[in-house]
C-alpha cells in the first residue's frame, strides 16, 4: 500500500507505456509488410501486362504487310494473338491510327480498365489493295 503512494499504478499499469510502444512497432511492421506485398503484386501485374502486350503485338505483326483489318478472325496473326490473350487472361484490340489516339474510344476499352498500349509503324493493305504505311496501336487490358 505504501508503494501506491510512490507512483505505482499497478502490475499492468506500469507496463502500459512499454506495451503501447511495442504494439505500435508491431502495427508498423505489419502495415509495412502489407504495403510491400501490395507493391509486389502490382508490379507483377504490370510486368504480366507488358509481356502480354509484347507477345500479342508480335503475333499481330507476323506478316510483313498487314491486312486491312488486323482484327479479322481469318488473319493468322489474329488467331495466334487470340490464343496468347487467352493464355494470359487478357483482352486485346488493334487499330490503325496515327494521331489523337484514345484507347477508350478507338480500342473500345471499357471505362476504368488499366490498358497497355503499344505502337508500331507497319505496312498494310488499304481498301483498294494498295500498300500504305500506318501506325498500328495494340491495346491490351484485363
Amino acid at each position: 500500500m505504501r508503494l501506491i503512494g510512490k507512483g505505482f499504478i499497478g502490475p499492468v499499469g506500469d507496463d502500459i507505456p512499454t506495451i503501447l510502444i511495442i504494439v505500435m512497432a508491431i502495427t508498423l511492421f505489419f502495415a509495412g509488410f502489407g504495403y510491400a506485398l501490395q507493391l509486389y503484386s502490382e508490379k507483377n501485374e504490370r510486368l504480366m501486362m507488358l509481356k502480354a502486350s509484347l507477345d500479342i503485338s508480335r503475333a499481330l505483326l507476323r506478316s510483313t504487310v498487314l491486312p486491312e483489318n488486323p482484327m479479322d478472325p481469318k488473319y493468322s496473326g489474329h488467331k495466334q494473338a487470340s490464343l496468347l490473350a487467352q493464355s494470359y487472361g487478357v483482352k486485346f484490340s488493334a487499330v490503325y491510327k496515327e494521331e489523337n489516339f484514345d484507347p477508350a474510344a478507338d480500342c473500345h476499352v471499357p471505362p476504368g480498365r488499366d490498358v497497355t498500349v503499344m505502337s508500331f509503324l507497319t505496312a498494310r493493305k488499304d481498301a483498294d489493295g494498295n500498300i500504305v504505311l500506318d501506325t498500328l496501336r495494340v491495346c491490351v487490358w484485363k
Partner: protein
Amino acid sequence: MRKGQSGVMDAMMFMIITSGAVGMLLFVSGLYAESTNQQVLSSYSYEYAGNALVALHYARDDKGDWFWRKLAEKYDSEHPDELEEYLEGDAGNVVEKVRLSSPSPQTYLCVLDSSVNPLKAMCYSMTPDDVGVLQTDYDNPNPCGPGMQSYSYAVPLDGVKSVSVILCY
C-alpha cells in the same frame, strides 16, 4: 535507470529496429521487377525499330517514288544537304509517320556508311522540336545524349551502307 524506464527503452529500441526492417522491406519491394520491366521495354523498342525498318521498304514519298531507293540516291549525291532537304520535303510524310508512331520522345533515322574510314554516320532527328536537324558523328554513330539509353535496329541499304532506326530514352 529504473525498471519502468528500462522497459520503455527496450520498447523504443524494438521500435527503431522494426522501423529499420520495414524501411528495408519497402526499399527492396520498390526495386522488385525494375530490371525485368526494363528488359521488356527494351524488347518493345527493338521490336518497334525492326518493324519500322521493314515497313519503310514499302514507303513511298510525296512524289510516289520508293523512299528506300531515294534515300540511297540522296545520300550518294554530291550535295551534302540533299538528304536533309529530301527528308524535310518530299519524304516529309514518311518522317511524320515514323515520328507519330514511335514510343520514344527522341527518334533518329541514321545512315551508316562503312565505305569510308573512319565510319561515317548521318543521323536525322525526328523529335518534334528538332525535326530537320542533321547530326553527323564520325566516331560514335549514336545520336542519343549522354546518360540516355539507345535501342536500334539496322538493315542494309546497299553493300556498304545501312540504315538504322534509333530510339533514345
